[in-house]
């Protein structure tokens, strides 16, 4: 379950990994998601290796299908990642944009 406190705790980590450049290591496109992500499907998820070698997962946004390839350069951005209910706290997190 998502609680506002968990979202607050996670935010402190997210700011450290924003606006970082990296390359796609591997990607997939999800067609059958869990409940919280149903309205975004189908959506691509990429595993990115940042310039400092750290690896981060995120959805790819503002993309063309031709961007879905190994080695594609991307940058991390802050986006809404999920909202559990109409009135629930909105969780923001990291997604990636093609460069």
């Amino acid at each position, binding site marked *: 379950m998502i609680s506002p406190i968990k979202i607050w705790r*996670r935010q402190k980590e997210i700011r450290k990994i924003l606006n970082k450049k990296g390359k796609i*290591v*591997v*990607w*997939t*496109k*999800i*067609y*059958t*998601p*869990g*409940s*919280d*992500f*149903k309205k*975004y499907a*189908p*959506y691509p*998820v990429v*595993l990115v290796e940042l310039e400092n070698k750290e*690896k*981060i*997962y*995120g*959805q790819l946004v503002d993309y063309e299908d031709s961007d879905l390839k*190994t080695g594609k350069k991307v940058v991390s951005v802050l986006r809404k*990642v*999920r909202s559990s209910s109409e009135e629930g706290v909105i*969780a923001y*997190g990291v997604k990636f944009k093609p460069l």
Partner: protein
Amino acid sequence: MNHLIGYHTTQFGELWDKSLFDLVEETISGVLKQTKLTNKQIDAVFFGNMLAGVLENNLHSTSKIAEILKVNIPIFRAEAACASGGAAFNLAKTYLEANSNKNVLVVGAEKMTDYSPEQTITALSAAASGEEQEAGLTFPGLYALMANFYLEKYHYTEENLAYVSVKNHFHGSLNSKAHFRRQITVKDVLSSPYVAFPLKVLDSSPISDGASAVILTNNRDLIKKQKNSVTVLASEVVTDTISLKERKQIDEILATKNVADIAFKNAKITRHDIDVAEVHDCFSIAEILAMEDLGFWKKGTGGQKIKEMSTMYGNGGSLIVNTSGGLKAAGHPVGATGIKQIGEIFLQLTGQAEKRQVRNAKYGLSHNVGGSGGTAVVTILAV
């Protein structure tokens, strides 16, 4: 030495008229009847289950089993995602090593079809890391990452993966307890819709209900009295990072590699001795990686080897894989899977595998994986 003296499984499938504990009760009574044991002869129970707490708000299942079995003995639940059954079996074996002349019941069960696919997918995601969940990575999504990486690295296509499902559906057609008993073609697999690119519906194991049970004992007098008995040569568990991204290789399950090495060493046999194996094919790619990581096939050759179909029943191969239909066709009630795999090997080694009986099977291996490879269990049995 620990012996496996009985196995029972319920039908696997969408069993809308049965609850989790209806299934547990059915399989317990089945295995007791088969071994001619009474509830009073059971000294401990180990229960493999993953989702009852998340989906049904239903914990303390151990006490519910005490109520069903009408006993007051030690009962424990093991949870290791899809390896919950294998983990329960390992704990039972370890319990016997510490206690002589005991009979232990191991039950695995899962009830998954009472909920919408989205709800069940979300519940299964509880076994992935927080970051994986936040990125919207489902379990098919994690295995899709492994598949995409593997196909690109070794220049295979989605067709190479499809042969796993074709083989396992053929085996499922020979198993009356399987969820799916329909044979499929490579074309059927390739034309099924995507779940998570490059994996499709027919690359994926289904959401199933089911329960399976085995009885393990180190009571020599009892072993002598039993008609069917196999020896547990090894049962080992290895863990690894919960996050796929923290592992050195995306297209390898290191826990499987390591646990297989330990199990073969302890069993004092080699890979060539194995006649039948049940490997964890939650997705088509998973069987190919399992065959490589268990050491049956060289790394990177699995995509080609599976096309030869030497592991299919009736093709004369020296190792037949997933005669139950695997997770793909027999179904995947997650807590039950690890027990059903061990049970299938028991049936093969004791000549009870009916239409899919592999001739003269002496050694069998079962391989059960939790999450994207955070837990791996290997069990080796001999007759």
